């Protein structure tokens, strides 16, 4: 199979080189679209429309297909995220153990709903289906670190800490 051309992206952004490498690894095959999107999100943080166009060209796929796949899966983000992420598990075990209470308190504290980012762009609230740490329910993932047996008060406290640190820096 012909290898896709790997040429410097016009913007001069070197991150595209990394992306090209991943595309070459999969021989530029359209079947590897999800793999390529994973890599792209890993490099760029989120999937901008321009990036999707670039991937569609590289894999020789219609843009509709790339956009369709990127929007179908919850894991892919089309918008940038806040500085910190608060991922609340809403799996059954966490639900039974009171994740809804945490959700309400956190939403009230942040002034935005899950799936959104606070106005100051500091904290993104994300809900996950199940992070698989059911033994420690209720669970949240704070900037990649799992926090088990969480309470509403503790969750709000952790978020305030993030916000305060941010404020101090701003002053």
């Amino acid at each position, binding site marked *: 199979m012909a290898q896709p051309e790997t040429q410097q992206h016009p913007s001069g952004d070197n991150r595209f080189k990394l992306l090209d490498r991943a595309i070459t690894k999969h021989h530029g095959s359209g079947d590897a679209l*999800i*793999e390529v999107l994973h890599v792209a999100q890993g490099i760029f943080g989120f999937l901008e429309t321009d990036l999707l166009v670039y991937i569609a060209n590289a894999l020789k796929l219609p843009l509709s297909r790339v956009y369709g796949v990127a929007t179908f899966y919850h894991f892919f983000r089309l918008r940038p995220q806040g500085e910190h992420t608060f991922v609340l598990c809403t*799996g*059954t*075990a*966490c639900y039974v153990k009171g994740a809804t209470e945490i959700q309400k308190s956190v939403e009230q504290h942040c002034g935005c709903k899950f799936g959104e980012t606070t106005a100051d762009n500091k904290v993104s609230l994300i809900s996950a289906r199940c992070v*698989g*740490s059911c033994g420690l329910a209720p669970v949240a993932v704070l900037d990649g670190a799992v926090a088990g047996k969480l309470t509403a008060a503790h969750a709000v406290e952790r978020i305030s800490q993030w916000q305060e640190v941010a404020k101090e820096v701003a002053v």
Partner: protein
Amino acid sequence: MTIEDLRECAEKEQARQAQFTHRILYCSSAGCVSSGCDAVKAGLRKAIDELGLSKKCEMIGTGCLGLCGEGPLVFVQTDRTLYQHVDEKSARRIVEEHIGQGKRVEDYAVDLNDAFFASQKKIVLENMGRINAESIEEYIASEGYEALAKALTEMSPEDVIAEVRKSGLRGRGGAGYPTGLKWDIVRKGVADQKYIVCNADEGDPGAFMDRSVLEGDPHRVLEGMALAGYAVGATQGFVYARAEYPLAIDRLKTAIKQAERFGILGNRIFESGFNFRIDIRIGAGAFVCGEETALLRSVMGRRGRPKVRPPYPSEKGLWDKPTVINNVETFANIAPIIREGSAWFAGIGTPKSTGTKVFALAGKINRTGLVEVPMGIPLRKIIFDIGGGTPEGTEFKAAQTGGPSGGCIPKEHLDLPVDYESLPTVGSIMGSGGMIVMDSTSDMVDVAKYFMEFCMDESCGKCVPCRVGTRHIHGMLDKIVRGEATEVDFEFLKETCVMVKETSLCGLGQSAPNPVLSTIRFFEQEYTSKLISAHEFNGTGLSPLSGAKES
């Protein structure tokens, strides 16, 4: 690598382990990682180095030790002592007193004769707490890859399928289709290429069995897949794993690399003519991709939308080629069956549901964690003997099995044997193994609404009954919870549930109403007590159709 090389490797590893008088294993599964096992690891390491015990004692990370709610867990293998709630300080005490002076630290020790351990039968989880999850040598030393070597050198593909058929193994993803039969269909299919796919898209909320197996014993799954490949004549395998399980994906990648380096995956495995490769495909957070036809589309880089079956994947799967698709736990059972023989496996469990099943116990229960029990064990034993019952002051109300596709089992049916035939008689299913316990404080209508919200969000939108029906059902449940529904709504709810169940395209829609139907069946009173009369309804000024205030 030849079979002799494999034995030599096993002996070398056993000799290496025999140098140490003690082996300390700390649980390095996601549950204990979140309770802080890294600090414990550092604490153990420091204590071992400072006390000069590093020649005498080996420390390794192992798979899930079971008691996830009481982590971090540490296990001293030599004299089988399990410690719970370990922190840096107690880690030092364990090294000082147990390893140094040979005295158990009773303050943290768990009684291994307790029913939690005594009632379990471990096949899939046999290596948890025995081997290092990241070492192929340790897997080989505990009879790993012996089944594959045996099959490739002594058995024909037909023999392998016959063994699996005779063992009575059924699909552990929940549907319970006989594994041997599925393989036989793929074997008989005529195609230039066939595929093996491992479904590790464990989407049911409240289930973490597959993740624990992949994290704790990834080689066992690879061996099962390679055996399947040999049996049906496939040369390429895919593991479809959830993106939410980064640790499992890492361990799996390491395991594949190790197996390739040892010549256990790749070309001419064990000097036979059999070639087999395994690649990982990472999911991206769509529950419907647990459905086999949707999963296959996702492996091919498409939107995960189900297709009408037949044709089944065993006839037309990946790229329209015959494809075996089995769950992680099913593949994990294959190596022991080939190694120990089908008669041994068929002797465990019940005649129609053989072997064991792994359950993830969670919810309102004293001991949460991962358990493996023989099929046919009464539910009461799992919940009260193994799980220790519900927290003090509350009463057991129901156990939910099968996640959003399953149902609730109330206390009247606690003596029901847990197997593929019995659970459907009370409107639930075996499912993939999540078991959530609810106590007297749980509101069943609210629970049903929770599951329906899940199915509504996760519906892929391809067929109307599922896309629109789940939304309607959720709306009606919401109305009942708000206290604005009448008898008419309740009847309509029941009708809609039956319609969605009977007319949806795939398993997601067909089983989505199960939690509602099963809670109505056993807890109807909780629904009816929230209903209001037509007279009261008129007084609310709500529109009978939309439920919104009429202006």
